[in-house]
């Protein structure tokens, strides 16, 4: 799957991400509008403001990030974000990437809050998941380490 994926739809997002990775959908075809400025923004706040119109994040215990503690390959880090909230969108930001916004899924608020994808990470960084629910932004984060490796056990 492409690093920056912006998919809009009401289909279960897990399905969508499989469809996209199989090349059945190209992002441009499913896009209502490609928010290029959000994906090229150099800061988290700029990206969030452009994409979601808000930068205030409330920490939530109801967002679960499944990601490796140490990435096996920074170029393809498999992640899964899930939430029990009625999610209008789920976005993922990598704090230390040159352009932090990695992907955003518009879910329409009536689908299962579950997305799974792969992101690229240049260096050890916090991975921030942002869920938009009821017009507000909620977030959780997890550190994913990108290491040179080679000296274990």
């Amino acid at each position, binding site marked *: 799957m492409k690093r920056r994926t912006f998919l809009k739809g009401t289909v279960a997002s897990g399905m969508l991400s499989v469809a996209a990775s199989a090349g059945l959908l190209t992002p441009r075809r499913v896009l209502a509008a490609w928010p290029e400025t959000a994906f090229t923004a150099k800061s988290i706040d700029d990206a969030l403001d452009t994409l979601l119109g808000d930068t205030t994040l409330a920490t939530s215990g109801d967002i679960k990030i499944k990601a490796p503690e*140490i990435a096996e*390959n920074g170029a393809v880090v*498999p992640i899964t974000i899930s939430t029990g909230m009625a999610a209008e969108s789920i976005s993922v930001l990598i704090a230390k990437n040159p352009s932090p916004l990695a992907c955003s899924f518009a879910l329409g608020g009536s689908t299962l809050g579950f997305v799974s994808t792969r992101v690229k990470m240049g260096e050890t960084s916090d991975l921030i998941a942002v869920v938009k629910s009821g017009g507000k932004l909620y977030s959780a984060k997890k*550190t994913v380490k990108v290491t*040179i*490796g080679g*000296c*274990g*056990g």
Partner: protein
Amino acid sequence: MNISRREFLQMLAVASATGISLPGQAVAKKQAAEKKLYDLPAFGNVSLLHFTDCHAQLMPIWFREPDINIGIAGMKGKAPHLVGKHFLARYGINPNTPQAHAFTYLNFVEAAKQYGKVGGFAHLATLIKHIRSQRPESLLLDGGDTWQGSATSLWTNGQDMVDATKLLGVDAMTGHWEFTYGADRVKEIIEKDLNGHMDFLAQNIIDNQWEEDVFKSYVIKEINGVPTAIIGQAFPYTPIANPRYMIPDWNFGIRDDKMQKTVDAARTDGAQVVVLLSHNGMDVDLKMASRVRGIDAIMGGHTHDAVPEPVEVKNVGGITLVINSGSNGKFLSVLDFDVRKGKVQGYRYSLLPIFSNLLEPDATMAAHITNVRKPFKAKLEEKLGVADELLYRRGNFNGSFDQLILDALIDAQDADIAFSPGFRWGVSVLPGEPITFEHVMTQTAITYPTVTLNQITGENIKLILEDVADNLFNTDPYYQQGGDMVRVGGLKFSIDPTKTIGHRITDMEVNDKPLKASKKYRVAGWASVEPNREGRPAWDVVADYIRKQDTVKVNKLNIPNIKGIKNNPGLD
């Protein structure tokens, strides 16, 4: 004094026949007490035997435990981060006893001469038969790092160890260094050799395309009518610590969530006892035990910690015992559960040191070992030189055998600096003993042994040291990789383990001059995880270096200046 079992029995016979008090009698009595070490009456109804990280040491060996094993943050002063006298005090072990020798580095050379070598598969086999004779339905678990670590294991692609563990009667295993023979070889062994004999278990390895299990996650065996689940957990960071190209299609990782699902599935399948056979490393085991419910015991390895008592970890499901069983064939864990009314009611545990002199070698295993060594005998036994001091590896920073390797790398590559990985395996050599080619292989026998020379800037040298230090001293065990600090030659530095990444390494000097960030240095190394490196294998470079000298002089141990650590029981 070094008394073999036979000599000891002869002495007893002579002493009792003559009624004369022999000068050696005190020692003989002491050794009789030592033999009681192995009198372990059966308890309960579900017994599990466990050894781990033997690193293919078929023969009895010397192995010095660490004198530096620093625990920081929540790990400070807790098992396994205890060394020397702190270790003895914590576990109530008297100094100058066989146990003190087995579990600590104290007085190592003298004690080694007194108590003799440790481990050896023929001796381990005898002990296992003895313990199992009282526990006929017990299971024998192998925690992995079994197929790698010796010359014969490397030269037979792990076959000598596969055959040895089958003879030993291993019921289930998991892995780490096993994977460095490559995915195809691992699969081949499982299909051709292990099939029908033992299960290779790893719940945390999935293929990276479909995210399906590559190996069986768990197996349920009935022990005296009690369904007992064994779950496998391979070393989570194999593709990072070792070459990823050898297992390109597999993802590893810790996978707590999947572990919980696996435990739940095993319970649903009727398991009344759930045991995790883990290669996490002990700090990771302890954290996992606090987060996953429903595991009765974690029998772990990887970090080579020999811990005499289980750590009882509380979690929402109750208590999980965390056990780690040492390394290099030195120890056998025996865990007895009393299971009634569908659950564990009590337990007994012993970590038995294997003193080779106290155990008659098992004839079948001894024959296998002789057979394995026969074609390689001359090469294995080649005397390269004599050690003028104790050679050992284990510890957070350079051991003397590492120093010797670093000296050899700098000499051979005309380098400013040398790096050698912080492996925790590798046997010890006593002062005055010949260093054989086999000894060198116990330090270097890997499938990616190439010696390299790179031009690296001072800035990147610091980055490398910081990166490895964070793998060792991160305050969260899930971000640790379980090796020791990279061994460094030619470069002096200070380290503060309590700081964060980027801030631990300071005062770097090469040839008494500060390391310059922009300057490129000649850095020798080996065991690169990148594919297709060209050059000589490390064992040849090290062997040549030793051959050049009659008595091997090792340069002063390049231990960094350790800052920020006070009153830490991981440092004597």
